[in-house]
């Protein structure tokens, strides 16, 4: 849920963009952290832990705690609490540690 009216703050948001969460189309604002856009769309589970497969969400929101790692445009372990949203991004729930990218 987004805040539209606030007694102290006004929010200046970037332009509206669409991106994909596990293949599903979602809207967000350009330049906000991916985690904020996902949260506004009701998505709280961002990855599953590598040993016990437990759901994980975000925790610190400053790129410090590694709770919010997701696969973004094929790259694993992206800290979505600080990574900025762009049009057309493919964001996926990460399972475990993620796979290394092998370049030919």
């Amino acid at each position, binding site marked *: 849920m987004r805040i539209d009216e606030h007694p102290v703050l006004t*929010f200046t*948001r970037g332009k509206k963009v669409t991106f994909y969460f596990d293949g599903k189309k979602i809207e967000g604002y350009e330049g906000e*952290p991916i985690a904020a856009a996902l949260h506004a769309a009701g998505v709280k589970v961002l990855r599953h832990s590598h040993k016990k497969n437990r759901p994980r*969400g975000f925790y610190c929101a400053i790129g410090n705690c590694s709770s919010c790692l997701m696969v973004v445009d094929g790259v694993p372990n992206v800290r979505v609490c600080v990574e900025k949203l762009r049009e057309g991004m493919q964001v996926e729930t990460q399972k475990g540690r993620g796979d290394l990218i092998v370049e030919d």
Partner: protein
Amino acid sequence: MLKTDIAIIGAGPAGLNAAISAAAMGAKVLLLDRDDRAGGQLIKQTHKFFGSRELHASLRGIDIASLLLARVREFDNIDFRLGATVLGYYEDGVITAEYRGNFLKIKADRYVIATGASEKILPFPNNDLPGVYGAGAVQTLTNVYGVLPGKRVIMVGSGNIGLIVSYQLLQAGVQVAGIVEAAPGIGGYLVHAAKIRRAGVPIYTSHTIKEAYGDSSVQGAVIWQLDEKWQPLNGTEKDIEADVICIAVGLTPLTELLWQAGCQMKYVPQLGGHVNLRDENLMTSVPGIYVAGDVSGVEEASAAMLEGKLAGLAAAKSLGYSIENYDELWQQAISQLDGLRSGPAGEKIRSGLKMLVR
């Protein structure tokens, strides 16, 4: 290799002030921050500051950040780079940083480490469930991006952060189911607590979380009472429904660079964990490395600003730069810090700092 007189790592309240003080004396300053906004945690603080006019009293944190940034921008001798994550400190006194896809090597004659602190977690079953968020994270989501963390929040911790964030959540239209505090009394200023109580939010002192529950994210928590020895009392369990558990149990300093540089460290729980020894100029045991703000002991933003001033002044002076009223500025910052740390509220900080002055 990028060369400069003073490299300052972190552009929060401490780093910004260090940059301004050092630059005003003529030093060439490189100011780095991993975020893409200046101000550190000030950018999420919507409450008005207390204290004196010199300490920006009655201004909101967000406005103090803008004010400091504007001052930094006035100096041609400050090279300010946002989006620059410092990666390491090497034995030849070089630091490296990732800056917008580039790898930077930096050699400064002096360093001011002002990297701040990060949120602590509390151990309880299911504390890893999505919906268990740090208080700073909740503030960021709500106050910086305008996204609500959930509908109903259990706040853990009644220090100033717990109280202020609870109030900010109420302002944003979120229900606060209650504040859970392990200590027998409220930790923060009573002026903040009174606002919360007037809004009808219960504060459960001598209580802690027994466990959180929920399928894939938080649906509630069971809290229970603690006796005078901090042991939980069976039969006192209360079930509280909520979709967010906000953890406001304090911060711990982000000291990685200090450890890498070999600064002498000491465990001081009053200051949030391991922190460095320092002299009266905030220089660590490694000559040329200074600290300011939460990295050297978790306090309030006002103290961070003053420490920034001190470290900036002292680092510039040690390189031979001068300013006419140096002694006056230095003494003023020292007395203001003493003022902030005076009285019963400052007792914890004072006892912690006593263990660290070289």
